[in-house]
Each structure stands twice: as C-alpha cells, then as structure tokens.
C-alpha cells in the first residue's frame, strides 16, 4: 500500500487515550456501609504509627516542659555531678554541672522545636512560592532559575551557617537563618516538578480557556493539588531541621548557654567520655529519635496519601 501506512516514528505514540475506566469501576470495592474504623486504621502503614508516636512524644515533652520538669531548670548541684542513671532523683543521671539529664533534655526539646518550627515554616513558604513561580515561568527563565536553585542546593549548609555565624554571631536566630538558607532550595526543587506536571493537565488548560491568568492558576489549581506532597515534604524538612540545629549547636554556632540545647549537650559529653561514658547516649538518642520520628511520619504520610487513593491531587 502507499507510503502512509508505514507510520512515521512520531514521539507521541498514541492519541486516543487508553481507557483506564475498567480499573476505576472495579476498584470500587468499597462496601455500601463505611468500613469499621478499626479495620481501616489497621491497614495504615506502621511507619505512620511509629512516626506519629515519636513526634507526639517529642511535642508532648516540649509542652510539659513549660509546666513541669523533674528538677528546676538549670539547677546545678555540684555535689551530684556526673551521677549515673538511676541515682535517686536523677532518672538519667546528671551532667558535668550536676544538672539533671532529664530536665536538660526536656528544655533542649523546647529549643529544637522552636527552631525547627520556625525554620521549616519559613523555608516551606518561601521555597514553595519560588518553586511555583519557576514552574509557571516561560521555558527560558525556568531553565536559568532551576539551575540557580540547583546551585543553592549545592552550597554546603554547614559552611553557610559558619559564615552567617561569623557575621551575626552564634544563637538561635543564626541557626534558624542557616536552616532556612539550606532548606529553601530543597523545597523549591521538590515543588517545581509536580507543579509543572499539573500545569500540563487539562483542567489547567480549561482554566486558561475561560480567562484565568497564571497567578490564579498557580494559587488555586496547582497548590491544592500538590498539598499531600507538601505535607510529606514538611515532615521530612522538619527532621532535617532538628538534625541541622543539633549539628550547629554541637559546633558552637547555635544557641548559647544558659539556653539548653541537645546539640550543645552532646558536644559537652564528648570530653566526658572517660568520666561518664553513658552520658552521650541521652542527647544523641533524643536527636536521633526525634529526627527519625519525623522521617517515619513523612514516610507513612506519603504511603497513605499515595496515588492509590484517588482523592489526592496528583493521581
């Protein structure tokens, strides 16, 4: 037959879309009555529970610390320095200055929470805004800005923090700023891809078709549809913030005494390895468990909010 039966190797392999209708119809296995709550809860991923528990514990401890701590904050008892865990009145022992470890941890938690909340929120808001703006810009600008974001990602975070500290001095503000600088490119980078995908969808085209402009589309169509993604991103960024804050404090760049900090506490235990080897476990464990908790939570949320659930935006 004539030449046109030999199909040209066009990139778009198919035009009429394959029909996923079968899957949708048959996936309606939901029974007429809503399923028993406990059964639904039983199917949730375990990471969600583990993470949720750890995070709740963290928040709880922080909140309680405002109302009660086993010992008055920062109370030094030089007579009971470096007590082992289990010594009367000191569940986990005392540090070099005789301060109760449990109290120290609780106060340190406050700091971690404060810094991570502030920095994560700011970083997410800024990062998402930048990501959306980039996704919505013309190709040329997108190319350049994405590279800029990548450059931001490549900047070593600790180095930036040290530079900031040199300029502004050590403290929570510096730590917060450092974390924000570190995390904004992350949030932006993560947002760009999915935002672009959504911008390519039909309902966005339809919106342009009835006169909507780009800013509206980004705000009202793209943002809600990357919601689940942002929730997951937030939890992971939270975990990172905890770790970074601890690291900065460890390096002496974070908050200074008398404010308690896990990172600084950890630093102090370094020199006490011989005298009180057990001491370093406590702040270390606190940092690890909290960061782990947020990571697990994020992982669990991602599983739950996955494309399997038709409800989430990006299915």
């Amino acid at each position, binding site marked *: *037959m*004539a030449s*046109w*039966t030999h199909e*040209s190797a*066009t990139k*778009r*392999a*198919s*035009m*009429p*879309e394959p*029909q996923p*209708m079968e899957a*949708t119809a048959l996936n309606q296995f939901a029974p007429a009555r809503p399923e028993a709550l406990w059964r639904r809860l039983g199917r949730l991923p375990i990471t969600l529970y583990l993470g949720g528990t750890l995070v709740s514990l963290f928040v709880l401890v922080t909140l309680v610390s405002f109302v009660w701590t086993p010992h008055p904050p920062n109370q030094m008892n030089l007579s009971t320095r470096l007590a082992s865990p289990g010594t009367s009145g000191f569940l986990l022992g005392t540090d070099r200055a005789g301060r109760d470890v449990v109290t120290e941890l609780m106060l340190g938690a406050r700091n971690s929470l404060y810094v991570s909340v502030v920095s994560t929120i700011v970083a997410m808001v800024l990062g998402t805004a930048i990501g959306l703006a980039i996704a919505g810009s*013309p*190709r040329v600008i997108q190319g350049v800005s994405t590279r800029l974001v990548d450059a931001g990602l490549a900047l070593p975070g600790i180095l930036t923090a040290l530079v900031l500290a040199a300029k502004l001095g050590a403290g929570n503000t510096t730590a917060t700023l450092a974390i924000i600088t570190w995390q904004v490119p992350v949030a932006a980078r993560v947002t760009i891809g999915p935002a672009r995908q959504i911008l390519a*969808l*039909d*309902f966005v*085209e*339809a*919106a*342009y*078709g*009835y*006169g*909507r402009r780009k800013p509206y589309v980004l705000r009202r*169509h793209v943002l*809600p*549809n990357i*919601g689940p993604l942002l929730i997951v991103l937030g939890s992971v960024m939270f975990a990172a913030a905890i770790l970074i804050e601890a690291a900065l404090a460890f390096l002496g760049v974070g908050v200074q005494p008398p404010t308690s900090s896990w990172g600084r506490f950890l630093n102090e235990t370094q020199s006490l390895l011989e005298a009180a080897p057990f001491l370093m476990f406590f702040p270390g464990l606190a940092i690890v468990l909290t960061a782990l908790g947020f990571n697990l939570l994020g992982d669990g949320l991602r599983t739950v909010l996955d494309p399997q659930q*038709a*409800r989430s*935006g990006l*299915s």
Partner: protein
Amino acid sequence: MSLVDVSGMFFHYPRARLGAGSEGWTLHDISLTIRPQSTLGIVGESGSGKSTLIRVMCGLLRHQRGTVRFDGDDILQLSREGLNELHRRNQIVFQNPRRSLDPRMTIARSLSEPVRALHDRTPDDTELIASLERVGLGQEVLPRFPHQLSGGQLQRVGIARSLSVNPTILYADEPVSALDVSVQAQVLNLLMDLRDELGLTLVMVSHDLGVVSRMCEDIVVMRDGRIVESGVTSAVLAQPESSYTGALLRAARAASLERAQEA
C-alpha cells in the same frame, strides 16, 4: 459571513527546532472557514495537529503566520477585553473527563469557575442547577468531587461548564474517546440535542469517522499538520479525493459492524 476564518495559518510550539522547509512546524498552511451554527468534524490520527488547530482557533495558542479571524476580528490584535470575549465565545470540551476537572474542587465550584472568571460574579445555586439540568444531571452532584462521579457524568459536567458562559462555538476534542460505548451514545446524543436547542456551532475533533459522519455536516481531514481534504461530509466520505481519506475510511469500515469484512 463566516464565524471563523483561517487563512494561511502556520503554527509551531515555542521550543520547536525549525528546520528547512516545514520541519518543526506543527500546523502548515491551514485555511478553513466555519459557518455559524454549522457542525464541523476535524478528523485525523495522532500527530495530525487537529487538537493543536482548535486551540489556535480558540486563542489558547498563538500562531506565528497567517490570520485567524473570529467574527471578523483578527484574534492576534485583540485587547485584553477582546481576548476575554474570545474565550467566552469559544469553549472547549476535553477528551478525558477525569483530567479536565480539578480533582480538588467540588463540582459546584468547577461549574462556577467560567462565570467567575469571565463575568466577575458568582453564579447562584439556581443557575448551577439549571446548568446541570441542561445536561441531564441532578443537583446531587454539586457538593461532590470528581472522583465520586463516573466518566460519563464528568463529561456532562465538563459540557455544562463550557456552556455556562453561553459560548458561540463549542469545540469538542475527542469528547467520547475515553468513554464506554453506551455512555458515548448518551454524550453524543446530548451534544446533538444541545446543538439543536442552543443553536451552537459545534466543532468536533475525532479520530472516529463513524462519530464524525453521524454528527458533522462538514468535514476536514488532517494529516501531519496539513489539511488533506475538506468539504461536505457526505460528499467527501462517499467519494474521497485523497487516498489518505480513503485509507481512513477503509480502516474505519473494517473495524465497524456494518458490512462483512472484505476477504
């Protein structure tokens, strides 16, 4: 006087690499007219440019060469207001109903978007219900989300949404390809009824000759970004001049139910 007048139009996508002659261009030398209240079918396979063509005619994509006139006005010369009017009068119904509605907006909200955007006001419930009624849906779908409706229902919502601003031309881009046969029939009938009731001009893009021959008085056959043949549907399909049209016909007949297949 024609409603849409396209003359010598060429279009390429923004980042296309233009080569010698016609390389890189998606649409080549397109010329066609659409009379008011007519029905036009645009037929072609993938890569033919048919979907791109209607988006250019709607003003969603800007062509680089040639003219496209809507109701006498060159669409490239329109002011901001003129463009809004162009959008209002040219609406598109998309192929995949599940992708053409924002999954995070209720049906009520999605339905009211065009009026909000183009007329700067929020339609009240009565208006929305009337909209739904016109496409055979009840008001119970208003608070629901797209994932709770079937493909056929969603497609009707899409049509209702397009009609909410009283367009002059309704472009349907493969409106039934993603639907089951029985639902296809419902939606096609609906389009035919609406066209009669509202005096719409209907432009239907499809790869399915059967659907086009049933719905459209005029036909344009496209291939590789060019118009290969055009004219009155019954004439073109009964006596195709282009061998490509002939091939499309043959393939459509082979997979149809009407005649026994040729040995």
